[in-house]
């Protein structure tokens, strides 16, 4: 993690998305949304809204008292015979895991799907250190085999079709793989069985950490989570500090919200509760349990009252499914493991707006994410807050807007604060558009307005309402004449200024560094 990361270019990434990816993504997200709607429907909307509110309040309470709950968690995990480590950032977390692996002479590791380990690039660190590391969640297994990154919080291979996966299995595993999900699963399963038995270390994240009992909770469907955390003699968990819940009673609420929102299940097939090393109970399992608590920017998020609620997220992925932008571009366009609406608010805070400043703009602010979020994160509000960080800067970071964009915004805001200037501008547009006008439409406009017209024509400017309104009264007609004279004078001046500005802009063309805004 020593190289300086380059800014994420969402536009370039989204342009490169082949159409079949959008098809695969949309098919999967529609399925997930459909099953979710069904199970939420069983509860009824009123119950569901109460549950969401309860989830919101208890998550907010937890992150507002994170220091106390983390201290309690550490104490309880330790009391249960586990070891707790604190990692300031990804590099430190990776170092801790590697050290534990080295102490135990680990050569083979198996992994449960985890966003935190994706975030810190743990797999690379382990493989670079010569430790064979295998992802055991089916989706992650596929993605790892393809040498790609996961593209959805809960469905890592959502961007791939069954044909694509069969082809991958044929080339990478050298097996005869038909494009049938059952057969493909059986092939992966056979490979994974051997790996579970041979592994020296199991690595997991956690869906929740219960402070009251020091328990790690894993919510899974494939059984691989239980295999990874019970078969190898060593279990290491890397978990973000935001994953704490106060007690079992709070967990009860979140366990109602998470599976319903994520996969449309009332409960997933496996919900594992791990308290300390299970060998202590005398029935096998790991002799050692290590919990690495990861900050990696989370305390910085916590310090910002306007964005703090980002940390309420329970990683269900529902906002990705409901997002029209995500559905068209898939997860990889976001250039980091956190995609969709939650990625667009989390990544710019974890990585900084210098790196991820254009992600908050990757949203039409349609609000579908906030409507579906099980813990009611005000995602559009936080998107706007982070757009401000990128454009104007705030006490946390920024700005990263180019001076040209900032000057353009200032000029525009000034013009729209002056009624006469605004009206003159509206009337001027009606005149200057004439050569470009085709009927009631402007089919193509020069840059930067071509960013609109390459997609669809623009209606012709037609600010005729005020004149119509004013001519309805005698006094209005008198005022209109006086106003016309003032506007004509203003337009004359504006024409001169515009020519001057155009000349200046032409000479500056090409010096623009940030392409966050047109």
């Amino acid at each position, binding site marked *: 993690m020593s190289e300086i990361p380059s800014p994420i270019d*969402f*536009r370039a990434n*989204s*342009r490169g998305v082949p159409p079949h990816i*959008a098809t695969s993504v949309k098919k999967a997200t529609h399925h997930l949304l459909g099953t979710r709607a069904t199970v939420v429907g069983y509860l009824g909307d009123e119950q569901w809204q109460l549950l969401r509110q309860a989830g919101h309040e208890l998550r907010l309470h937890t992150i507002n008292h994170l220091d106390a709950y983390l201290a309690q968690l550490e104490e309880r995990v330790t009391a249960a015979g586990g070891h707790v480590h604190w990692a300031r950032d990804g590099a430190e977390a990776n170092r801790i895991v590697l050290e534990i692996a080295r102490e135990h002479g680990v050569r083979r590791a198996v992994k449960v799907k985890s966003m935190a380990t994706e975030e810190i690039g743990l797999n690379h660190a382990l493989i670079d250190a010569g430790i064979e590391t295998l992802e055991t969640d089916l989706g992650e297994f596929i993605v790892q085999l393809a040498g790609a990154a996961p593209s959805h919080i809960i469905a890592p291979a959502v961007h791939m079709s069954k044909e694509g996966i069969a082809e991958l299995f044929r080339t990478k595993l050298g097996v005869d793989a038909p494009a049938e999900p059952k057969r493909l699963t059986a092939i992966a399963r056979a490979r994974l069985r051997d790996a579970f038995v041979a592994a020296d270390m199991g690595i997991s994240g956690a869906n929740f950490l219960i402070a009251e009992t020091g328990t790690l909770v894993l919510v899974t469907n494939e059984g691989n989570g239980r295999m990874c955390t019970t078969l190898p003699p060593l279990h290491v968990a890397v978990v973000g500090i935001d994953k704490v819940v106060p007690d079992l009673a709070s967990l009860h609420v979140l366990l109602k919200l998470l599976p319903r929102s994520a996969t449309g299940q009332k409960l997933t097939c496996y919900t594992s509760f791990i308290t300390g090393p299970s060998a202590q109970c005398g029935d096998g399992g790991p002799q050692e349990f290590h919990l690495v608590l990861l900050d990696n920017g989370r305390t910085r998020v916590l310090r910002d009252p306007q964005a703090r609620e980002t940390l309420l997220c329970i990683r269900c992925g529902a906002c990705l499914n409901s997002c*029209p*932008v995500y559905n*068209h*571009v898939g997860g990889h366009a976001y250039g980091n493991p956190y995609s969709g609406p939650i990625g667009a608010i989390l990544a710019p805070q974890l990585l900084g707006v210098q790196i991820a400043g254009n992600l*908050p*703009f*990757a*949203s*039409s*602010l*349609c*609000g*579908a994410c*906030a*409507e579906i979020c099980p813990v009611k994160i005000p995602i559009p509000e936080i998107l*706007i807050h982070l*757009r*401000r*960080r*990128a*454009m*104007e800067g705030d006490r946390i970071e920024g700005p990263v*807007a180019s001076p040209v964009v900032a000057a353009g*915004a*200032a000029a*525009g*805001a*000034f013009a*729209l*604060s*002056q*009624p006469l200037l*605004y009206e003159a501008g*509206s009337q001027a*547009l009606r005149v200057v558009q004439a050569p470009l006008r085709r009927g009631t*439409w402007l089919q193509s406009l020069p840059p*930067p307005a071509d*960013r*609109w017209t*390459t*997609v*669809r*024509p*623009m*209606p012709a*400017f*037609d*600010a005729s*309402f*005020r004149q*119509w309104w004013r001519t309805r009264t005698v006094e209005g007609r008198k*005022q209109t004449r006086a106003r016309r004279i003032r506007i004509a004078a203003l337009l004359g001046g504006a024409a001169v200024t515009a020519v001057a500005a155009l000349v200046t802009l032409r000479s500056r063309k090409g010096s623009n560094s940030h392409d*966050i*805004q*047109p």
Partner: protein
Amino acid sequence: MTVKVQLFITCLGENFFSPVLKDLVGLLERLGVQCEMPEGQTCCGQPFYNSGFQAQATGPARQWLKVFGPTDGYIVAPSGSCAEFVRHRYPEMFPPGTPEHAVAREISERTFEFTEFLTRVLKLTDVGACFPHKVTYHASCHLLRGMGLRDEPKQLLAAVKGLELVPLSEEETCCGFGGIFSVVYPEVSAAMLADKVRNIQASGAEYVVVGEPGCLMNIAGGLQKIGSAVAAVHMIEVLAARGDR
């Protein structure tokens, strides 16, 4: 007592949809509402605010408050987006204690989106309109999720004489406008618009009704581009119609 309305014509409404504004006046007057049009109104500032230029947005916002603050009666916009911005954002933009804050609080109580005004203030669903066509309805995001107007626009349409409302697949999915989004990421916006246009075409409607100038610009443009036989109209145009189109 006569109900008085201050017309908040909005910058998109004014610059692109003058006929809609004229229909708005015609309809409100037909319903016995007295209309006024405060001079000096420009833009509410939302385009700046939502693009990250929140300090810059206070300029147009101040002008708006200066114009509408001293008025009386209801303030009605042909847009849920602009009405929502004024109602919800102004009181936050100007902190408590500033003179603007008090005005913002006061106007937020009496600013309404058009269909909201008809259904919740005037308590009307039948406005005496006649529009003998097959139409479908696109639920604009800020109307729907911003203002919470899910059923009201459709109740108004259902009461229009001769109108046949047909369902639109993915009715509540964004059309890809999103203000600045449409020009920052035109390719993604285009893909979203293409889906919307495809669904509109498949609905079998002659008209798609949209209640938001921004979405109307986008959807009308998308339909025009492919030479669709379906026309996009503003909700106000349908409610003002008397069987004359």
